[in-house]
């Protein structure tokens, strides 16, 4: 009987029931989309910020605490195992070499495949080929094997020539016509073939980059710096820093503070803006549902009066309207949730080129909120009508 009353009430006044449900669905959809975005935007923006490159730097130190000492040969492998896919690291080894004209120039050895992923802002005209061949297909840098850095320069015998990436200011100084040129370091000469130039607007412009294997074979100098771009929340990055410090006791782990602080500020402000917008929009939607539903229940004062005249107790009436409101709230919340997930996913696709993951944890919140709003909008008119005699309403007064 109770169920039949509920169903008939919805079927008989289809138009009003549908418009009330529609308002509920819109509100629930908007709420779901906003909450989903709010939760997900941090992860999405953190990914954007990783394009700023390293947020942690690992520097080798000698016994008296000076920078620039070599890191252990397996340092990169250890960094990779600490990161375990939560970021990328690139080694750098630096020496000052001289050109045949006697000019001092900084030469660096690095892993081009890793730098390419880590330092995306490098504007490079052509990357040198590495031993592994072309690396355009390297899409999952997490799966890279540790680089074989432990090579002995004397045993290998130093190479005669090496292809290199040359900074835009360095190339003007040493080889304006893009020809091969000689560099010497501690009496060992290397012919450098420029295959591309790099422009960054910073120190890299004055340097020459060789592949780490060639560099070690030529100079015998191991990397002294590993730049690490660790992904995750500030707590996760701090945890990674602590693990790195434990894994490589001879190196010093330093945060790149401007990146970390800037990231935290921008993320915080964006989330705060989003929260303000979400609160505004959800509040408006809830108020509109409230007004629509209140009107609907108020309109049905005749049903109410007839039930009362037929002898329904106040408790039965209350539970009838409460059940109706709860059913409407639940149905609206479920449909709205699905649509809201769709909206959030669409915004994610359009704006971040990656879908926003549906968060099931949002569902209970939206469900409870919707039912609270619908119950509230049923209670208001009922408590108003409670004291009125059914005869007065039935007479149409």
């Amino acid at each position, binding site marked *: 009987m109770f169920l039949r009353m509920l169903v008939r009430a919805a079927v008989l006044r289809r138009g009003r029931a549908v*418009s009330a449900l529609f*308002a509920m669905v819109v509100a629930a959809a*908007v709420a779901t989309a906003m909450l989903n*975005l709010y939760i997900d935007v941090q992860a*999405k923006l953190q990914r*954007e*910020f990783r*394009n*700023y490159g390293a947020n942690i730097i690992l*520097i080798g130190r000698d016994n*008296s*605490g000076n920078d*620039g000492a070599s890191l252990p040969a397996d340092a990169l492998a250890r960094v990779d195992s600490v990161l375990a896919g939560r970021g990328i690291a690139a080694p750098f080894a*630096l020496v*000052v070499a001289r050109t045949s004209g006697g000019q*001092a*120039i*900084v030469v660096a050895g690095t892993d081009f495949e890793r730098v390419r992923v880590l330092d*995306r*802002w*490098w*504007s490079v005209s052509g990357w040198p080929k590495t031993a592994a061949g072309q690396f355009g297909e390297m899409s999952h840098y997490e799966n890279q094997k540790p680089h074989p850095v432990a090579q002995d320069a004397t045993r290998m015998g130093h190479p005669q020539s090496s292809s290199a990436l040359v900074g835009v*200011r360095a190339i003007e*100084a040493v080889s304006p016509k893009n020809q091969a040129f000689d560099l010497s370091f501690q009496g060992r000469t290397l012919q450098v073939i420029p295959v591309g130039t790099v422009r*960054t*607007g*910073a120190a890299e412009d*004055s340097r020459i980059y060789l592949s780490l294997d060639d560099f070690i074979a030529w100079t015998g100098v191991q990397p*002294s*710096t590993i730049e690490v771009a660790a992904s995750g929340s500030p707590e996760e990055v701090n945890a990674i820093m602590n693990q790195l410090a434990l894994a490589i006791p001879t190196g010093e782990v*330093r*945060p*790149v*503070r*401007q*990146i970390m*602080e*800037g990231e935290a*500020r*921008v993320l915080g*402000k*964006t989330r705060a*803006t*989003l929260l*303000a*917008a979400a609160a*505004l*929009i959800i509040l*408006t*939607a809830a*108020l*509109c549902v409230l*007004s*629509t539903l209140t*009107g609907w229940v108020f*309109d049905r004062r005749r049903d109410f009066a007839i039930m009362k005249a037929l002898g329904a107790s106040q408790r039965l009436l209350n539970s009838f309207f409460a059940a109706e409101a709860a059913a409407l709230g639940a149905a609206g919340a479920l449909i709205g949730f699905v649509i809201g997930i769709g909206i959030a996913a669409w*915004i994610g696709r*359009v*704006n*971040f080129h990656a879908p926003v993951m549906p968060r099931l944890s949002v569902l209970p919140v939206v469900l409870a909120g919707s039912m609270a709003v619908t119950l509230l909008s049923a209670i208001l008119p009922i408590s108003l009508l409670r004291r009125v005699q059914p005869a007065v309403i039935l007479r149409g007064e």
Partner: protein
Amino acid sequence: MFVRLVYESFRRQKRRKLLAGVAITLGVTVATAMIGVATDIGDKINRELRTIGANLVVTPQEDSLDVEIGGVNLKPPTDGAFLSEADLPKIKGIFWHNNITGFAPMLPVSVVIDPNVKQQDGTEQNVTLLGTYFAKQLSYGKDEFVTGVRSTLPWWKVSGAWPDDSSQDILVGERLAKRLGAKSGDNIATAGRQLRVSGILSTGGTEDDEIVAPLGLAQEILGRPGAVRRIYVSALTKPEDAFARRDPRSMSGAVYDRWYCSPYPQSIAFQLAEAIPHSQAEQIRQVSQNEGAVLTRIEGLILLITLAALFASALAVSAAMATTIFERRAEVGLMKALGAGKLAIASIFFAEATLLAIIGGLVGFAVGGVLAHQIGQSIFNSDISLPPVLLPVVLAIAVTVTFAGSAAAIRRAVGLDPVFALRGEL
């Protein structure tokens, strides 16, 4: 007659009109606040992004190569070219001077710390002394402004006091201070002078191993008054696109003007190089490239949310209007029974809707403006102001949405048979 009908309708049905009015006001409030935030968010986030550091660097045109490893410059200090400190205020004279949030000159000098303080292995303490502005008062024309590392490099933290730009006080990087055992208030003997340490500097970068001093002091030690090695400039820029990357020399007049007058990193760099003689300016790609990406994402996100908010408030307003009209079908029946034409009835409803929309729109715009201001103050500590041109736009949107929301309901109400409506059988 027409005016009286509308007036009476408002007077008699206060509750219904109030409900519809509140719905419109709320919708317009949210729309106004969100549009305000969306139009200003780019500028606000751009300013926050400036905390990552300068995005442009100006260097001498004929400079020799930097030979620098880990912040230690191995180039002979007198080698290479310098910029002139006297040209610095001209940065505030370029076309986009309002977009320059700050700049700081740099002059690194190699100094030897007091020979009495030797390192454990007995070698001399060779350190870099970096001359710069901390918070220097400068003027260009009638413009007075303060600039220096305190504003351009906000992550530099000092325990103790920042030195005055005209003093002989210095900051000592925290790792260097540890090695030397120096505290703020100590004196350090270097380059034939006794320099007072006013504070210990912590940056997380190479400056932690250096001494940072007022520019004047560094020039004195180097013996080159007025010399500056490079200038870091923080500018608010627009994300670059294909047009920004074109070479200005290959452009024709009008296209060149458009490029020159857009705040791209490239065009601001171009103007900086023009303003400062014998210089070249370059964007620091790590900062400027990523800035554009982050900015585009956040702006896009807020824009899409604003669209969603507009859509939701439009729906809410439509629903409220439909309800109020639906409730008045008996009235429509009576009017029709008395011989009112469809057009007359519809025009009464539309007049009411317009009146509601304008009142709701005005109130909503005012409240939305206050809301946007509050959001700006509490999140960004700066004002979000609404352009006045937004008012007619918002009013037009409010009227359109109210009309659209009413249209279907009015058509149904007008199409009803008055007999059924009057008997209350619908």
